[in-house]
């Protein structure tokens, strides 16, 4: 019965023109970008080197907060910050104001921290500012490509699991492994690395609708 009700919901969404489907005016307003620009932005965030000051170890708005870093530590990669959208420039401005570097969801929603999360990172690489989209509604601005995902994905496409995580695809390796860039909570920062397909079982490949191919 639940299955049928969920199908009924899909049907109602279809009939009502649900926002999960591309609205032409939204797509028309998307900034256009090239794959080379996407990768350049992705690498800039992953390669950004910063120094954690003593004032960036504490979050003034949370007594429970614990920093991932040490005072004076040099780090490569903008730190992971749940709900964050900061590129290198905004991140540095916030660091200089004494905001805490990075945060995880276990500390709750914090406004006194700086950094970027997985979907914020993808939006930034696509040239979008803010956090209007998350893994749950990324489909509004990104479509599922019809080509073979294991051979024909292009750098700048993403692998998305709604409600969970999203990574930027950067290329294939000769052994069949894949290169990705991601804002990683477990690594506390934006990183680019090689990984395996098994990690992405259940993810959906998506292609930004503002790409100029």
């Amino acid at each position, binding site marked *: 019965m639940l299955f049928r009700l969920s199908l009924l919901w899909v*049907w109602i969404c279809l009939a009502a023109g649900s926002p999960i489907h591309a609205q032409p005016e939204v797509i028309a307003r998307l900034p256009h970008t090239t794959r080379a620009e996407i990768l350049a932005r992705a690498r800039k965030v992953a390669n950004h080197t910063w120094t954690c000051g003593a004032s960036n170890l504490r979050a003034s708005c949370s007594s429970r907060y614990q920093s991932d870093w040490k005072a004076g530590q040099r780090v490569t990669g903008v730190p992971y910050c749940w709900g964050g959208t900061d590129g290198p420039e905004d991140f540095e401005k916030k660091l200089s104001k004494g905001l805490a570097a990075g945060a995880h969801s276990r500390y709750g929603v914090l406004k006194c921290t700086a950094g970027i999360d997985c979907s914020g990172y993808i939006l930034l690489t696509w040239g979008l500012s803010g956090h209007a989209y998350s893994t749950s509604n990324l489909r509004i601005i990104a479509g599922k490509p019809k080509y*073979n995902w294991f051979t024909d994905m292009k750098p700048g496409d993403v692998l998305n699991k709604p409600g969970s995580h*999203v990574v930027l695809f950067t290329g294939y390796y000769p052994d069949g492994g894949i290169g990705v860039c991601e804002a990683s909570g477990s690594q506390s920062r934006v990183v680019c690395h090689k990984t395996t397909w098994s990690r992405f079982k259940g993810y959906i490949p998506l292609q930004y609708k503002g790409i100029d191919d």
Partner: protein
Amino acid sequence: MARPSGIFLIFLFFGFLTSDAPGRQTGPPRDASSAPTRVIKIPVRAITTQEVSGIANTDTAALLVSPGAEDELPEGPNGFDVLGDDSLVITDPLRNSVSFFDSQGKFRSAWKIGFSADSVTAVPNGNILIREARTGQVHVFDAKGQERPEERAEIPKSPEAKILSGTSGTVQRPAVGGFQGGLLTIQFEKPGSTLVSLENLGTDSEGDTYVALEATTGATGDDINVSKHVRRYSADGKIIAEIANLPLDYYIPPVNELRVHRALVYQLFATKSEVRINIWNTNQRDFRSLR
């Protein structure tokens, strides 16, 4: 986007309500999974937002996990290795430590290493290489847990592998002991499946090589659909064991997923309630290939 016409929608609506989709077979039957020979289960403790501070000092026998949230993956133990006496070392990144368990999964001890680790590798000289998750730096520890800051080391890389087609590939085998090494050709011919990746997990002194293969039954379906298998090849290139369809529904994505030790294949597989180490004995008849 054009909306479906009214007649079409009504047809679709009644079609849905009268269908029995959940019980219907929609594709070919899936290949059977190879059940592990043995499973070690280690308890985990989930951090709540109320107790994030001070939790690092709690009972170290239970590994810590952070459940994550919308747009944040769960975090916790994602690296492991098997030591010479078959005991296990597992990263406990939220406690800035690594924990040691005997071959039955009983907690032995923990090293407070002072950083969050996401990969641990035991090397032949007895040292343990531990990678710092937040910097990527590899730290060298001796068998007693003393850090050797003067020693520099890199985590050994897997020998080169190459996909040649959807049914074949090659992996490079290093010279080990009396085995000369050389190229191993992999053939993967399963109807409806396409080979997508290869990884050499290791070659032993007899020349037996363990290879992880990823395959897919569909490259354009609803979502990424992959299966993972581990094969043991003899020095002369014959398949002598195969573990089919490893579980892949990880709660925490592993960095060190598979290890091979004394013909046993170990898999780190974290669930919401425990960290499992799935173990397959490739000497056992269940996994010996009849080909």
